[in-house]
C-alpha cells in the first residue's frame, strides 16, 4: 500500500465518519421534533410552533438551552464515574453507526464509493456488542449519583436491557440463518429481488414475521421506551437513572437514548425491511415516461428508500408511546423471559426445520 493510498483511505475514513456523525447528530436532534409533532397530532395538539416555521428550530433551541445550563455534580457522588457515565452511554451508541449500510456502492469519478463506512465480516455482532455497552452508562449513572431513585432506575433499566437483549439476539439468529452472513451489507443484498408469491419483496419481515415482532418489542424495551419506560417512570422514580444530571451531561443521555433508537431502527430496516432495497422497484419508475432521468439526480434513490423505511419504523415507537400504558415490572420480566424467549427459540427451531426440508 503506497503512501497516497493510505492518505486517501485516511481521508475517506475521516470524512465518512464525520458525515455519519453529522447524520446521527442531526437525526437525534430532529427525532425529538418528530416525536413531539407526531405525539401532538395524535393528541389533537399542535406541538412546538413558535421557534421557526412550525417549530422547526425547536431542537436547536433546546440544545442551546441545555448547553448553557449549570453543570451540577452532587457532592456525595462518585465524581469520576459520574462524569464517565454519560460518555459510556453516548460513545458506543454513536460509533455503532459505522457499519450501517445506508446505500450500496456508487461510482464517482471512477472511484467506487460505498454508502457505509465499514463492511465488517461481523458487523451485526459489532452492533450488538456496542449496544450491550449501553447498560454501563445507565448503571454507572445510577450508582454514582448516590441517590436511591437513580439507583433504582439504573437497576431496573439495566436488568430490562439485559433481559430483552437475549430475546432480541435470538430473534436475529433466525434472520442470520436465512442470509448466512453476519455482514449487514450481505444481509441487505440477500433481500434483493422479488420474494413470496412474486409480488411481495424478498424482505425478511415476510419470511420471518415472528422474529420481526419479537425484534420490534425487544427493540422498544432495549431503548427503554414506552410502554417499557419503567426506568424513568416519573411517578415512581422521578426520572430514573439521570435524575441527578443536569445541563450538557443530561443532554448526553438524551442524545444516547435517541441515537440508540435510531440504531435499532436502522438495524430493523437492514435486517427485516430490506435495507436499501426499493419499496417500489426501479423498473416501475422507469415505466413512467420522463421520470427515469431523475433517478440518478439526487444520488442513488436507494439511500432515500432506506431513510423512508427508517422513519416509518421509528413512527412505530411514537405510535406505541402514544397508545399503550406502561407495564408493571413483573409483567415486563414475565413477557421477556416467559413469552418472548421461548417463542424466539421455537422460531429458530422452526426456521431450522423448514430450511432443512427446503434445501
Amino acid at each position, binding site marked *: 500500500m503506497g503512501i497516497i493510498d493510505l492518505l486517501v483511505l485516511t481521508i475517506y475514513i475521516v470524512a465518512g465518519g464525520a458525515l455519519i456523525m453529522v447524520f446521527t447528530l442531526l437525526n437525534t436532534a430532529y427525532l425529538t421534533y418528530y416525536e413531539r409533532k407526531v405525539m401532538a397530532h395524535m393528541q389533537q395538539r399542535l406541538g412546538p410552533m413558535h421557534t421557526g416555521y412550525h417549530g422547526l428550530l425547536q431542537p436547536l433551541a433546546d440544545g442551546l438551552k441545555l448547553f448553557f445550563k449549570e453543570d451540577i455534580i452532587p457532592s456525595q457522588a*462518585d465524581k*469520576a*464515574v459520574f462524569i464517565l457515565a454519560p460518555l459510556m452511554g453516548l460513545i458506543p451508541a454513536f460509533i455503532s453507526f459505522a457499519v450501517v449500510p445506508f446505500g450500496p456502492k456508487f461510482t464517482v469519478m471512477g472511484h467506487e464509493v460505498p454508502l457505509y463506512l465499514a463492511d*465488517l*465480516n*461481523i458487523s451485526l*455482532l*459489532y452492533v*450488538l*456488542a*456496542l449496544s*450491550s*455497552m449501553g*447498560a*454501563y452508562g445507565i*448503571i*454507572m449513572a445510577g*450508582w454514582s449519583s448516590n441517590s436511591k431513585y437513580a*439507583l433504582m432506575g439504573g*437497576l431496573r433499566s*439495566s*436488568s430490562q436491557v*439485559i433481559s430483552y*437483549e437475549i430475546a432480541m439476539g435470538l430473534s436475529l439468529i433466525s434472520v442470520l440463518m436465512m442470509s448466512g452472513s*453476519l455482514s449487514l451489507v450481505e444481509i441487505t443484498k440477500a433481500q434483493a429481488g422479488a420474494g413470496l408469491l412474486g409480488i411481495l419483496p424478498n424482505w425478511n419481515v415476510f419470511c420471518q414475521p415472528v422474529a420481526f415482532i419479537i425484534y420490534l418489542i425487544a427493540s422498544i424495551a432495549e431503548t427503554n421506551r414506552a410502554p417499557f419506560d419503567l426506568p424513568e417512570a416519573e411517578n415512581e422514580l422521578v426520572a430514573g437513572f439521570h435524575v441527578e444530571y443536569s445541563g450538557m451531561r443530561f443532554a448526553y443521555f438524551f442524545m444516547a437514548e435517541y441515537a440508540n433508537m435510531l440504531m435499532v431502527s436502522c438495524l430493523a430496516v437492514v435486517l427485516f425491511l430490506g435495507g436499501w432495497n426499493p419499496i417500489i422497484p426501479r423498473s416501475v419508475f422507469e415505466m413512467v415516461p420522463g421520470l427515469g432521468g431523475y433517478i440518478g439526480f439526487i444520488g442513488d434513490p436507494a439511500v432515500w428508500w432506506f431513510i423512508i423505511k427508517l422513519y416509518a419504523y421509528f413512527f412505530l415507537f411514537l405510535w406505541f408511546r402514544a397508545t399503550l400504558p406502561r407495564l408493571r415490572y413483573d409483567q415486563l420480566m414475565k413477557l421477556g423471559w416467559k413469552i418472548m424467549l421461548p417463542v424466539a427459540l421455537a422460531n429458530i427451531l422452526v426456521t431450522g426445520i423448514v430450511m432443512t426440508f427446503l434445501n
Partner: protein
Amino acid sequence: MLLQTGFIYFATVIVVCALMVITRKNPVHSVLFMLPLFFHVAGIFIMLNAEFVAAVQVLVYAGAIMVLFLFVVMLLNIQKERVRPRVGLKWTFTAPLGLTLFGFLVAILVRSQYNGTQGSFTIEAVKQIGNSQAIGQVLYTDFLFPFEVASVILLVAMVGAIVLAKKRLD
C-alpha cells in the same frame, strides 16, 4: 512494526488495568477497570485476525458477565472492603512466593521452543472463507462434541442457580 506497537499498547493497558482491578479500594471501581481490560483483550484478538472472537469477547464478557458483576457489587455496597488494609503480615510470605513462582514460569516459558504442528487455518485461509464462517465450520465439525458438552454444562449451571437461589425452599 505496526503489529508490534499495537501489541505493546494492548498488552500494557491490559496489565495496567489488571493491576488497577486488584488495587482499587472501591470494588465498583475494580469492576469498572475490567471494562477497558476486556476491550483491549478484544483488540488483541482483532490483531490476530479473530474478529468473531473479539466481538464475542466484548458481547459476552463486557456486555453480560461484567454487568452482572457490577450489579452484585453495587447491591452489596461493601463498605468493609474499602477500609480493610490491603497489605498485611501475610504478604511477607506470599508475595515473595508468588513472585518466585512467576519468575519460574516466565523463565521456563521463555527458554522453551514452540515448534508444534501447524493447523490448516492460516491467516490467508481464514481470510478467504471469512472469519465467522471458519469458526462455524470448525465448531460444528472438529469441536462438535465439546460444543455439545458445553451446552449441557450451561444447562447444569442454570439448574444449579435455580436450586441454590430460588426463594422458596419447597
